């Protein structure tokens, strides 16, 4: 009798919760786990990316499916990194799931602050084969591994730098297309600056990210030969030329307060039609197609322009990881599994228009391609084409453990150039000196 009753309850329970499982894309087998996690509350934080915002909106579905409650926080990028860096260093249990930030990945993973995820990924009782880890883009997973090949983060985004014109109509009116080279970019910005009283150009003021494609395009780099040789090369002739170039773009064709534009402001300016063109992240350029955008029908997109030495778009992945101090690792893995399940990502694509996907099965789905077209532009093809440049290995500079130091100095150097406080040569020389001092203080032998 007892056995029969239990079976009936299971069937009724499964039927009652079936819609939730379908919505969450979580297999009914997890119903067994629901009771197991009923009293678990996870503390989760990520920086304020579009994906992180969408996850916040879907959290009730996760709680409904698993019984796990979530305290969820998405501060701005620099604030998140400072907070996570400090929390992780204590090896405390304040957070159960954190974003493994690209520029901190080497530092955080190398210091042993994150849990290897292989045991979760390869354990079929915790992760069904259908979840398909191999489906994640290898290029986005590699920064999440240590030297031994263990995986510490599940990448939720492969963010790439591209070109976006919110007012492409103004470029077209001048007989111009999307700029493909640095020369074309400068000529285009000169041609359209001031049209409709609009500034032509803006980039996010995190120049440790947005300046590097120009630096490498001119033939320079941040370090001599990362990750082996970390001697900074910020005062090279190529670095000075790149700083002069970017300085001119922002000074001559940027809005009055160009240095004050963080990624949100730069994206908003583009969406609201207050600036003509920007080199911005794919995930943020996608927002030009969101409701409320004034640039939906006037926008166009392209690859990051190439410099004299080639095309070096910024490519970075961020992933979900479990801090070593977490006391709820199994529940944390449930969250990561859910947040990166194909079903949820499919839903996010369909309902939110999310596009910086790391699952190749979604990227190669024709329906997805159609859904992510923006004003006639195949954004997914641009995304895939940009990701292909990762094979050049030009992003190695970014995952060395002392990149945050160089990142700070590069940002300050470009600020000095754009504000006119120093010329490019002086400013890059100062960045070089400061970076050397900071690296030595961090124990790097130069």
């Amino acid at each position: 009798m007892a056995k029969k009753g239990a079976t009936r309850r299971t069937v009724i329970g499964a039927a009652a919760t079936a819609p939730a499982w379908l919505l969450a894309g979580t297999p009914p087998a997890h119903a067994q786990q629901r009771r197991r996690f009923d009293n678990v509350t996870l503390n989760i934080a990520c920086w304020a990316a579009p994906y992180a915002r969408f996850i916040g909106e879907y959290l009730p579905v996760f709680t409904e499916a698993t019984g796990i409650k979530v305290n969820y926080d998405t501060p701005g990028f620099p604030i998140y990194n400072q907070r996570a860096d400090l929390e992780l260093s204590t090896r405390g249990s304040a957070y159960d799931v954190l974003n493994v930030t690209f520029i901190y990945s080497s530092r955080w993973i190398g210091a042993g602050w994150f849990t290897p995820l292989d045991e979760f990924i390869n354990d079929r009782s915790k992760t069904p084969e259908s979840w398909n880890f191999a489906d994640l883009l290898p290029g986005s997973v590699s920064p999440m591994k240590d030297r031994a090949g263990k995986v510490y983060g599940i990448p939720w985004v492969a963010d790439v730098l591209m070109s976006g014109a919110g007012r492409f109509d103004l470029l077209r009116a001048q007989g111009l297309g999307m700029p493909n080279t640095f020369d074309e970019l400068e000529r285009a910005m000169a041609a359209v600056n001031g049209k409709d009283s609009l500034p032509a150009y803006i980039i996010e003021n995190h120049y440790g990210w947005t300046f590097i494609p120009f630096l490498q395009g001119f033939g320079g780099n941040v370090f001599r030969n990362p990750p082996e040789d970390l001697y900074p090369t910020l005062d090279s002739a190529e670095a000075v030329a790149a700083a002069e170039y970017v300085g001119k773009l922002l000074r001559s064709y940027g809005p009055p307060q160009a240095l004050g534009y963080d990624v949100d402001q730069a994206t908003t300016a583009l969406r609201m039609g207050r600036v003509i063109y920007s080199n911005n992240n794919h995930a943020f350029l996608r927002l030009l197609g969101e409701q409320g955008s004034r640039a939906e029908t006037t926008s166009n997109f392209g690859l990051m322009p190439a410099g004299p030495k080639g095309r070096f778009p910024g490519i970075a992945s961020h992933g979900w990881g479990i801090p070593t101090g977490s006391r709820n690792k199994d529940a944390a893995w449930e969250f990561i599994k859910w947040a990166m399940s194909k079903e949820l990502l499919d839903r996010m694509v369909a309902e939110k228009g999310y596009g910086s996907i790391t699952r190749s099965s979604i990227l190669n789905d024709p329906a997805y391609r159609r859904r992510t077209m923006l004003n006639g532009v195949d954004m997914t093809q641009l995304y895939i084409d940009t990701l292909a440049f990762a094979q050049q290995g030009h992003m190695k500079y970014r995952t060395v453990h002392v990149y945050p130091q160089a990142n700070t100095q590069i940002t300050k150097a470009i600020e000095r150039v754009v504000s006119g406080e120093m010329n490019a040569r002086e400013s890059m020389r100062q960045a070089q000196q400061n970076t050397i001092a900071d690296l030595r203080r961090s124990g790097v032998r130069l």
Partner: protein
Amino acid sequence: MSSRGWSAGRRRAFALGLAPALVVLAVVTIAPAGYLLLTSLTPLNLTMPGTAWDFSGPHYNYVDLWDDDRFHQSAWIQVKLSAATVTLQLLVGLGVALLLNHGNWLRRFARTIFLVPMVLPPIAVGILWRVMYTVDISPLHRFMAWIGLPVPPLTTDPSLALWAIVIADTWEWFPFTMLLVLAALQMIPDAPVEAAKIDGANDLQMFRYVLLPYIAPTLLVAALFRLIDSVKAFPLIYVLTNGGPGDATTVTNYYAFVQAFNFSLWGYSSAVATLMVVAIFALSWIIDRLSGTGDARVD
């Protein structure tokens, strides 16, 4: 009971009464300060756990600071910021207090309104001024442009960014001086004021020869308190300029913050903080000395 025994008992009672406060003081102030000092003698880097108690080169951080131009520059920026904010807060606070000294209902209402900036959370003040300084959305910029006096972007201009901080900090803290001066003005007896009026003193003479001698000690105390507080300027810089453009607004505590929170160099950052603590102690000692002098003058 002998008088010696009574005195000893009184001392014991005082010591017992003070003990809880001293314990709390030791736990919340002296212990962290001691830990700060110890950390400053190590190369503590959070990514290298072995550095936590490495005292093999206790002087290295301080030698490094001696040669660190950015640290020196941050101290100089701090001096400029402190001088400008304290001076402006005194002048504005004094001026407003003189205007609001005599009360009708409107002035009493104004006094209350003027106190608002001081009681706002610092981060709210930062956000408010961020809006004011963001050209695209700032009512201040729009108004100035409308009257034909356009203001350049303040926070991204290296020659103006520090002034942007000064203006916001003055707005936030002039009520402190205003409040102290108002209290001092209320304490001035009527007789000398009446006598000066009978002697035909004009407003300037009244201020210079009658009011100022009475409120000078209060102004001194306000100045010194604001001076100490100005060293703690952080939220406005964090929200408005992030220490930039370049290093134009990187004051010493912001420099220490970057070393610790961005680079994980906690030992080095602790050395910067320790020197700041020493500077604050020196200022406190000066305050103590000057306050004593001020009291004697009032008496």
